[in-house]
């Protein structure tokens, strides 16, 4: 298996409802990534694109083929990935495997979504399609209600009074906003306090508005190349050194592990083992904070903190710059935003920019060498992790 590097990245601003089509958004991110790689569209041998709800948001299926032509990668094979919110990470992982195998030398991976364009009612309905349509949706399950169930369960399992847990959860939201407001690509750029979180609208008990990420529009793309090609193109290659992916059935069937997400623990172990590193070696992580409680659940299963202790860790600054691991310096899904088909590629974009020292002052980690991405689809149905390492 060959070494594979990220040689260029591109990302649109993540935003609320906007007027560009998915093909236009993806094309912008893709061209930025290709141009940054000092390549031309004709150099791209294949496209790997995450897109989840294009049919619902703008009546557009098969966005990947139109995107390939739009950017001038004429007639190359173009595949779409759908694993709910983990789609773009799946795309990057598959793109990695094709380059690692030697089949391709240069490919483009990424994703695009117009989740905000759908509006809250349709987005809430369509996001619920990633729970079980027959055994869960009739109950009225929604994406926030899945994590609301997990929040109450977390409180009960670890014996943390709900009021205390909610303050810990709010702390993670506040940290997300703190960095997101500095990020020019972020969707929600504002300062939010613990009180703001605790006084915001109740979405699904115990999750309030500022416990929840927004529905976002946006796109992100990365160019992957074999080590040999990467050395020709850039002095700053970021190598993908570990990958993991796992699946699970409906939420109720995961009962033996909840509130832990089994698929995450399987996926991230694959990634750690492949890279030959431990959780303590990770400098920066972009993790799937679709909801504040999701931060705690993720960080524990990724091995950063003990089970039931992540909230305390956040409150002590252990998840911040200078702590054990700097988490979501992009603002995370909470503030940077969550265009679901693009989110995982956006995480890779952030890790690469951090390693190159190219993010805005105030949210730059000091010379990070190892980064991890974590993306969750549905209610744990798809989990994907990537480990990236600075190659210079």
């Amino acid at each position, binding site marked *: 298996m060959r070494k594979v590097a990220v040689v260029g990245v591109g990302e649109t601003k993540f935003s609320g409802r906007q007027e560009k089509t998915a093909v236009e958004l993806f094309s912008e991110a893709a061209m930025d990534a290709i141009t940054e790689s000092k390549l031309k569209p004709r150099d791209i041998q294949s496209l790997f694109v995450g897109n989840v709800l294009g049919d619902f948001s703008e009546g557009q299926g098969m966005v990947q083929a139109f995107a390939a032509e739009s950017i001038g990668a004429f007639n190359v094979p173009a595949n779409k990935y759908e694993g709910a919110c983990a789609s773009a990470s799946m795309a990057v992982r598959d793109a990695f495997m094709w380059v690692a195998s030697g089949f391709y030398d240069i490919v483009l991976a990424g994703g695009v979504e117009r989740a905000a364009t759908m509006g809250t*009612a349709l987005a809430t309905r369509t996001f619920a399609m990633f729970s079980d349509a*027959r055994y869960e949706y009739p109950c009225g399950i929604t994406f926030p*209600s899945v994590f609301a169930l997990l929040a109450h369960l977390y409180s009960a399992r670890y014996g943390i009074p709900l009021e205390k847990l909610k303050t810990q959860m709010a702390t993670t939201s506040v940290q997300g906003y703190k960095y997101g407001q500095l990020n020019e690509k972020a969707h929600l750029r504002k300062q939010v306090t613990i009180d703001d979180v605790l006084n915001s609208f109740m979405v699904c008990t115990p999750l309030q508005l500022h416990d929840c990420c927004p529905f976002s529009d946006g796109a992100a793309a990365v160019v992957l190349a074999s080590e040999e090609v990467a050395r020709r193109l850039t002095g700053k290659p970021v190598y993908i050194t570990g990958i993991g992916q796992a699946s699970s059935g409906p939420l109720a069937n995961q*009962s033996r592990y909840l509130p832990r997400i089994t698929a995450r623990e399987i996926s991230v172990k694959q990634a750690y083992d492949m890279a030959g590193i431990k959780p303590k070696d990770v400098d920066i992580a972009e993790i799937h904070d679709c909801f504040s409680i999701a931060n705690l659940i993720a960080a524990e299963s990724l091995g950063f903190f003990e089970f039931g202790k992540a909230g305390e860790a956040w409150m002590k600054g252990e998840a911040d710059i200078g702590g054990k691991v700097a988490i979501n310096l992009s603002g995370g899904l909470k503030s940077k935003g969550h265009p679901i088909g693009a989110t995982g590629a956006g995480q890779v974009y952030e890790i690469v920019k951090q390693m190159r020292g190219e993010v805005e002052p105030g949210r730059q980690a000091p010379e990070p060498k190892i980064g991890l991405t974590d993306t969750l689809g549905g209610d744990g149905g798809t989990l994907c992790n990537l480990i990236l390492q600075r190659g210079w």
Partner: protein
Amino acid sequence: MEYKLTFKRYDEALRQNKLLGLKCRDCGAVTIPPKMVCRQCASSEIEVVELGGRGKIQTFTVVNVPPEGRESEVPYIIAMVELDEGPWTMGNLDNVDPATATMALIGKRVTMKHKVFPGDKYSAGDSARPLFSLEA
């Protein structure tokens, strides 16, 4: 290989307030919602059994923001119930005022009836789901 307990059969039974699941002849585990094989050991030696429909609440939430088409239902309570036979299942909670739903619900015992979701333009027809009530 034929699917032993299809949604159609599960749904028809639930409309009679009967909760069907699958019992594994190899390891004894009970699987619900139904699957092709045992949820624990992946054996296909499974048989359809009727479950008691009783259990205790493991977690819950009160939903205030509805999906498209279900605006008239909010607020409503979703509960995850650990059935006496072992597996968990999802349902709604009937005889509790959403305004008074607190952590005290966790651990409470429940019994089951059903309620039919009439379906929407995205779902392939209507379907029943468990409707739990706190045990008297």
